[in-house]
C-alpha cells in the first residue's frame, strides 16, 4: 500500500518540475534582462543592474501605458461581444437539434483551423470598403474571428448539460422573461461565461497578425509594441514590456484555476473539438 502512494507522489513532483522548467524557466532570462545594463555572453549574470528599462517602459515616451490601455479596451470589447454572440449560439448548438447542425459547428470551428493570416487578408479588403481599417472598431471586430469559436464551444458544452425546463418553471412561478434569464439562466451558465470570457480575453490579448493588418499601424497594442522593441534589439526594454504583457495571463490563470478542473461542464465543450 505504501509503495504505490510513494510512486504517485514522486510522479507528482516530477510532473510539477517539468511544468516549471517548461513554462516558468523561459521567463527568468526575460526578468533578468529587464533589470540588466548590458548582459554579454558568457556571463551567467549581468555585470551591472539597473532600473533604466523599467523607468523607460513606464514613462510616457515609450507608449507602453497607452498601448496597455488600448489592448485592455480591445480585449474587453472583444470579450463582451463574444459573450453576446457566443451565449445564444452555444445555446442553439447545445440544446437543439436542427438540420445542418454539423455544418454550422464546422463553420464555427473553421477560424481555429484556417491560418489567421488567410482570414485577415480576405477580411482586409472587405474592411477597407467598410472604412473599418486603421480603426479600433475594426480591430475589435477582427478579433472576434479567433475568440468566438472558444466562447461558443464552451457555452455549447454548458448548455448540453442544461435543462431549459427550469426556465418554464420560473415563468410559471411568475418571473417575466428578463427575470427568468437573470435569476435562473444566468447563474446556471455563469461558470461557462467566466471560463469562455477569459479565454476570449486572452486570445484577443495575444493577437498580433490580425491587429497589425487591420489596425494598419495606427492601432498599437502591446504585442505590436513588444515586437518593435524586440526587432530593434532592445532586450532590456523588451524584457520589461514582456513582463507587463504576461501579467494578465498569470492573474487569469490563478483566478480560473478552480473553474478549469476536468469535472467542470464549462470545459466539456472541448471534448467535441
Amino acid at each position, binding site marked *: 500500500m505504501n509503495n504505490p502512494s510513494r510512486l504517485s507522489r514522486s510522479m507528482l513532483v516530477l510532473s510539477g518540475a517539468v511544468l516549471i522548467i517548461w513554462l516558468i524557466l523561459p521567463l527568468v532570462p526575460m526578468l533578468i534582462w529587464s533589470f540588466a545594463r548590458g548582459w554579454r555572453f558568457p556571463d551567467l549574470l549581468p555585470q551591472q543592474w539597473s532600473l533604466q528599462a523599467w523607468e523607460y517602459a513606464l514613462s510616457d515616451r515609450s507608449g507602453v501605458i497607452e498601448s496597455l490601455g488600448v489592448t485592455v479596451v480591445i480585449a474587453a470589447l472583444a470579450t463582451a461581444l463574444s459573450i453576446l454572440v457566443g451565449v445564444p449560439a452555444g445555446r442553439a448548438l447545445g440544446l437543439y437539434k436542427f438540420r445542418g447542425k454539423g455544418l454550422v459547428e464546422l463553420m464555427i470551428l473553421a477560424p481555429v483551423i484556417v491560418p489567421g493570416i488567410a482570414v485577415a487578408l480576405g477580411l482586409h479588403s472587405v474592411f477597407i470598403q467598410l472604412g473599418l481599417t486603421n480603426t479600433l472598431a475594426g480591430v475589435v471586430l477582427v478579433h472576434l474571428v479567433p475568440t468566438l469559436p472558444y466562447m461558443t464551444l464552451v457555452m455549447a458544452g454548458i448548455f448540453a448539460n442544461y*435543462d431549459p*425546463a427550469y426556465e418554464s418553471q420560473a415563468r*410559471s*412561478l*411568475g*418571473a417575466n422573461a428578463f427575470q427568468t434569464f437573470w435569476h435562473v439562466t444566468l*447563474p*446556471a451558465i455563469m461558470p461557462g461565461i467566466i471560463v469562455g470570457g477569459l479565454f476570449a480575453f486572452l486570445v484577443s490579448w495575444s493577437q498580433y497578425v490580425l491587429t497589425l493588418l487591420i489596425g494598419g499601424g495606427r492601432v498599437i497594442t502591446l504585442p505590436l509594441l513588444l515586437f518593435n522593441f524586440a526587432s530593434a534589439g532592445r532586450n532590456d526594454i523588451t524584457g520589461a514590456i514582456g513582463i507587463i504583457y504576461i501579467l494578465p495571463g498569470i492573474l487569469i490563470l490563478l483566478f480560473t484555476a478552480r473553474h478549469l478542473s476536468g469535472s467542470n461542464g464549462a470545459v466539456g465543450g472541448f471534448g467535441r473539438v
Partner: protein
Amino acid sequence: MTRVLLSALTKTYPGAPAPALDRLTLDVPSGELTALLGPSGCGKTTTMKMIAGLLEPTSGDITFDGRSILREKPENRGVVMVFQNYLLFPYMSVADNVGFGLRMRKVPKDQIAARVAEMLALVKLPDLGRRRPSELSGGQQQRVALARALIVQPKVLLLDEPLSNLDAHLRIEMRDLIRGIQKDLGITTIFVTHDQEEAVVLADRVALILNGRLRQYDVPDAFYRRPADAEVAAFFGGKNVLPGVSANGTFDGPLGRLTLPQGALTGPGLLTFRPEAVRIGFAHVNAVQARVAERLYLGTQTRLRLTVGDTAVDAVLSPDLVEGIGPGDEITINLPPGSLWVMEGKR
C-alpha cells in the same frame, strides 16, 4: 376559487400525422382536484403545458371563470405548474426557492421571510430553510416544490405525476398532504398521471384520455363500476367483459340469462362486472355454475380463475370465503344485479 373550462382544445405538433390532443372539452369545477389520466404520449402533459402557457394550442380555448386566458403570458395566468422532477433551483437555498415567486413580484423581504416560514410549516418541513435542495430526499424536494408553488396563491395548481417518483409509504403520506392542503386552500388543482391507482386515490374526478381523446370524465369509482367502453374497462384492469344482448332487463350471453339493474343499456353490448363483485354460493338471481381453473393467493385477497363453459370469469374474494376450494372444483357463484354494467360495443 376558479372554474377551468377547456373547449375543443387541440394541439397538433408540426409534422405530426395526428393531433397530440384532439378537441378536448373538460369542465373542471372550482376547488376540485381533477386527474388527467392516460398512458404516456396520450396528450396529458401537452394539456398541462397549454394551461400553464408554456405551449400554444393549435385551436380551441381555455377559460378561467369564463374569461379566456390564451392571450395572457405564463407569468400572468395565476397558474403554477409543479414538474415531475421538482426542478428546485440548485444554487438557491430551500427558503430562497420557496420565496422565488414572491421575490419576482417584488414583495418586501420581511413579508417574504414570514410567508416562507408559513409555507414550510404547511408542507411539514419547518427547519430545512437553510439547506440546499441537493441535501434533501426526493420526498422533501417535492414538498419544497409544492410550497414554492403555493406561496404565490395560484388560481390553478398543476401537478405533473405528483406521486410517481415516491415509494409506497411516502405515496400515502404525500397523497394525504396534497389532498389536505388542496381542500384547505380550495385551489382548483389538475394533475396528470399514467397510473390509474394514483388517479383514483388522489382525485375528486378523473378524465381518462386515450390517443389524444377524452374517453370518460367521472368520479373515480365509476371507472370500475360503470366504464364507458371496453378500452376504458381494460385500462382499469377490468377482466370480465362478455358480449351479448340486453333486452327487457336481462342480458343473454355466455353466462346464460342474467338479471340487470334498472336503467341498463339495451341492445347488443358488452357486460362487465368487477372481480370483487362475484359472490360464492346460491342466490335466487344470477346464480351460475362454474369450475375453478386456478387459485392465486394475493395476501389479503384470493383470486379465483373460473370457467363457465368456454368463458373465463375472474373473481377476487376474501381468503376465508374460499377455504377448501381448489382447482377442478365445481362451485356455484352469483352476480348481484347491482354490480352488472352493460357498455356499448361488441367483441
